C-alpha cells in the first residue's frame, strides 16, 4: 500500500526508469517491438476493427442490403430500447444477478482460500482443492442439467427435505420467481468457487512467513493471524480482481439463465444477452440493429463501471488497474 502511494507521487516527476522513445532506443529493443507488434495487430484486427460494426445500431440493418444499403435511422433503436419496459426489466435482472454473483463469489472464494490454507494435512488439502475446482471445467449445459435434476419434484433436494419431514409436498423451486436469483448464485458458487480460490491461495503463499512468526510472538491466535495477517496480505489481489470483475457485472451470464429459465420465471430470468439473442438472432425478429444497440449500451455501462471503480480505488490509495 505504502509502495503504491510512493509510485503515484513519483510519476508526476521525471521518471528515470522510463527511457525516452528515440531511434536508438527503438533499434536496441527492436526484437521486443516486433514481438509485441504481432499482438497489437492481433488486438486491432480482432478487438477494434469489429467495433466498426457498431454503426448498424444507427441503421435499420438488413443483412441482404449490407451496411452500405441499409437505411439510417439515427437514435431510433436506442429510443425503442429505453421505452421498452422489457429492456428495463432485463437491465435490472442482469445488474442484480451480476452484483449478487460478484459479491458472493468474491467472498466465498476468499473465505474458502483462507480456510483451505489453514488445513495442515497436505494430502487432504490438495484433494479438496482439486475436487473443488473440477466443476469449473464442466460446461453450463451439464451444470444446468444437474441443477434441474436436483430441483425437480423427485430431485435430491425435495427428497431430502421430505425425508426429514421439513416439507410435506415437493416444492417447485424452478417455478418460483423469488428463488431464481438465489439458484443462479448458488449454481455459480458451486461451479466457480474452487477455481476462483486458486489465485487467492497463490497470493497467500507469497505473504512473508516472518509476519506470521512475529504475530505469534505478539500472542496472536490462529484466527487473529487470519484476520490481521492473511487478509491484509491479500488486499492488493482482492482489489485488482474486484476491479476486473466489476467490468463483468453485466456479463451476469447467458447459458445458465437461458437454460434454467421457463415461462414462470421469465420476468426475473432474462438477461441483456438473452434479450439480444431474442431480438437480433431469432429469425422471427432478426433486428440486428436493436441487438447491437443493446450490446453498445452494455459495453458503455461496463466501461463506466470500471472507470468509476478504478477512480475510487485511486482516491483511496488502493491497488488499481490504470
Amino acid at each position, binding site marked *: 500500500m505504502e509502495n503504491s502511494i510512493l509510485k503515484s507521487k513519483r510519476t508526476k516527476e521525471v521518471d528515470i526508469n522510463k527511457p525516452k522513445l528515440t531511434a536508438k532506443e527503438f533499434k536496441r529493443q527492436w526484437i521486443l517491438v516486433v514481438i509485441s507488434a504481432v499482438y497489437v495487430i492481433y488486438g486491432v484486427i480482432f478487438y477494434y476493427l469489429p467495433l466498426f460494426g457498431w454503426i448498424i445500431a444507427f441503421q435499420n440493418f438488413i443483412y441482404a442490403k449490407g451496411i452500405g444499403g441499409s437505411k439510417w435511422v439515427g437514435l431510433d433503436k436506442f429510443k425503442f430500447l429505453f421505452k421498452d419496459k422489457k429492456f428495463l426489466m432485463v437491465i435490472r435482472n442482469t445488474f442484480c444477478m451480476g452484483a449478487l454473483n460478484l459479491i458472493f463469489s468474491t467472498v466465498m472464494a476468499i473465505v474458502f482460500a483462507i480456510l483451505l490454507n489453514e488445513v495442515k494435512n497436505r494430502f487432504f488439502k490438495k484433494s479438496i482443492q482439486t475436487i473443488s475446482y473440477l466443476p469449473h471445467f464442466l460446461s453450463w449445459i451439464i451444470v444446468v442439467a444437474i441443477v*434441474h435434476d436436483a430441483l425437480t419434484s423427485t430431485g435430491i433436494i425435495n427428497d431430502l427435505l421430505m425425508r426429514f419431514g421439513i416439507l410435506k409436498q*415437493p416444492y417447485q423451486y424452478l417455478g418460483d420467481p423469488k428463488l431464481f436469483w438465489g439458484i443462479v448464485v448458488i449454481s455459480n458458487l458451486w461451479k466457480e468457487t474452487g477455481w476462483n480460490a486458486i489465485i487467492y491461495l497463490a497470493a497467500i503463499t507469497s505473504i512473508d512467513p516472518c509476519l506470521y512468526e512475529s504475530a505469534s510472538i505478539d500472542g496472536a491466535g490462529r484466527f487473529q493471524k487470519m484476520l490481521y495477517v492473511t487478509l491484509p496480505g491479500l488486499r492488493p489481489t482482492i482489489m485488482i480482481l474486484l476491479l476486473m470483475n466489476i467490468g463483468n457485472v453485466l456479463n451476469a451470464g447467458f447459458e445458465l439463465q437461458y437454460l434454467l429459465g421457463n*415461462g414462470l420465471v421469465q420476468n426475473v430470468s432474462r438477461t441483456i444477452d438473452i434479450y439480444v*439473442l431474442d431480438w437480433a438472432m431469432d*429469425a*422471427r425478429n432478426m433486428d440486428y440493429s436493436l441487438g447491437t444497440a443493446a450490446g453498445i449500451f452494455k459495453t458503455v455501462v461496463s466501461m463506466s463501471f470500471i472507470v468509476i471503480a478504478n477512480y475510487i480505488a485511486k482516491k483511496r490509495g488502493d491497488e488499481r488497474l490504470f
Partner: protein
Amino acid sequence: MKTKKIVSLVLGSMLAVSSLAACSTGNPGDTTATTGGDTPAVTDGGKQVVDFTMFAAMSGKEKAEGNDIMEIIAEKTGVRVKETWLTGQDAGEAIGSIIASGKLPDLIDGGDGSVTLYQNGLLVAWDPYLEKYPNLKELYSEEEWDKFRMDDGHIYWANVFGNSYNNTATPTGVNGEAFWIQNRVLEWGGYPKIETLDQYFDLLERYAAANPTLPDGTPVIPYTCLCEDWKYFCLENAPMFLDGYPNDGCVIVNIDAGMDNPKVVDYNTTDTAKMYFKKLNEEYAKGAIDPDFATQTYDEYIAKLSTGRVLGLCDQYWDFAYNIMGPFASPLTAEDGSTFRLDEIGCDYVPLGLTAKAGMAQQWNSYGDELNQSSGCAVTTSCKDPDLAFEFLSRLLDQDIHNLRFWGIEGEDYLVDENGLFYRTEEMRENWKSDSFKAKHTCEYSYCPQWQGMSRDGINRMMPGEQPSEFILSLAAPLQKTFEAYGVGTYTDFLGSAKVQTGPWYPLWSWSNNLSSDTAGGVAWKDMGEVKHYWLPTVVMSSDFEGDWANYMDAYNAVNPQAFLSEAQAEVDARLATAKSFGWTAPTN
C-alpha cells in the same frame, strides 16, 4: 546472443501465428463441414458422388456414416446428403445464427425461419427447375404452387408433408393433436367411451389409484403437459379443439354465418378455455398432474414418456411418438426379475377427441391434405450446383428411390407377394422400430420431397405406415385388441373426427408461425405468448383459481390482443379472396 534473439523471435511469431491461425481456420474448416464443399468422392462403383449438406430446423436423428440405403441412393443419384438437426435451440434462433454466420448448408428446411432466409436472399428460386423436373412440378397443382409464391412472385420452397399422390389420401395415423391415453388404461376401464375432460381425468385417476406403479416399480403419473417455449401448444390450444374447431393454431375461425363469411374468434378467452384451465387446476390440486409440468424441458418430458409412466397427455403425435417408439419396444426388467416391454403391456398411446360437452362433433384431425406453405425444403445460394440439387430432389420422388427411402431394400426390408403387395416379416418390422438400426441402415431423407397415399403401382402405399395390411400388424398386441374393441382399423378412425371440409384459409398457423414483430399485430402476438407462458401454468397451479384467472385476463387484455385478431381476420379474408379467384365456392350444405 544473436541466435538466442532469433530463436525467441521465431518462437514468438510462431505463437502469434498459431493463435491467429486457430481463429481463422474456423472459417475454411467449418465451411467444408457445414456447406459440404461439394467435394466429389469416388464410390465403390467408381461413379463420382457429390456430398451435399442439409439442415432441418426440427429435432431429428443423424444418420451414421456409410448408412446402407444412403449409399445405394448415392450410387443411383450421384448425391449423398448429410443431414443435421436442431440441437437445443429453437428453429428461429438456429436459422438466425446460420444467417449471421453466413455458413449455409446446401439444402435447408428453415421451419419458422424460412421467410427470413428468403428475405435475406439466401434461397434459390424453384421456378426454372419446376419446368425442368416434372417429378417436382407434379407435387402440387398450379393453385397450390401459387400459395408458395413469395412477394417477388417466385417459389423458394415446397412443403414435403401431408401431400398425397393423385390426391388420394389414405391416412392411418393421426399426426396432429389429441388427448392421448395409454391403451392399457382403456382396457382396464372396460373400453369406455371417453368424450369429455371429466370422463378422461376420472378414468386416469381411478387407473392410477388402482395401478400406482409399472412392473419395474416406477410410479405412474396420470397426466403431464409440456409447456416449454413454443411447444406450450400442448397446454394452450386445447380450448380451440374442445369447442369443435380444427387446428388453425392461433385463433378459431367461426363459420356460423357461412363459409364465405368467416369470423376470427380468440380461443383464449372463451368459456371453454376457462372451463379447461379450471379442470386442470382441480386436477393439479388433486395431484393428478405432474408437479413438474411447468418447468420440465422437452428432453425431460421425452425421458418421462419413455419410461411408460405417463398415462395421459395432450400433444401432437409427431412431437412425442417417434421419440418413444424405440424405448417402448426395448426389453425392461421387472421387479420380480422377468422381462417386459412397454408396448406389450399396453403403454402405447391412442388419441381421444375430447370436446367441451359430450356428443359434440370435433375436428382434432383434419382429413385430406394440409398445405403448409410457410416452410419447406429449399436450396440455398451456397449450393455450388443447384441444378444437381434439384435433380436430386426430383430423383428422390422416382418410385424406386421413394420405395428405398420408406420401404427399404426389397428382400431385406420388405417382401413382395404374388399380387405385388409389399409386406414385412415380424423381424423386419422390429428392425424398423429400432433407433440404432435406423441410424445405420435406413435413409428416409425425411425433410426432402415425398409422397403419401397410393403409390404409382396402384397396389402399395407410398408409406408402409399407410399400408392397411402392414399397419395393423405393426401394432403391438394390446393395441390391436383395443382397436378391435372399439371396432376401428386405424388411429384416424379411433379419433373419429367429423369429416368436414376445411375453409380455404386453413391452416391459419401457417401464417401466425411466421409473424414478425414489424406490425402491431406481430408485437401483440409475441406479447400474448409471453403473458400466456407465465399465466397459464400459474392459473393451473393456483390455489385461488378465480382470482388468478381475473389477473390473467387483465394481463392478457393489456397487451392488445385485438391488434393480432384484426390481422388474423385480414389474413383469413385475403386467403378466401385468393381461393375465390381460383374458382372456389362455398359448399352448399
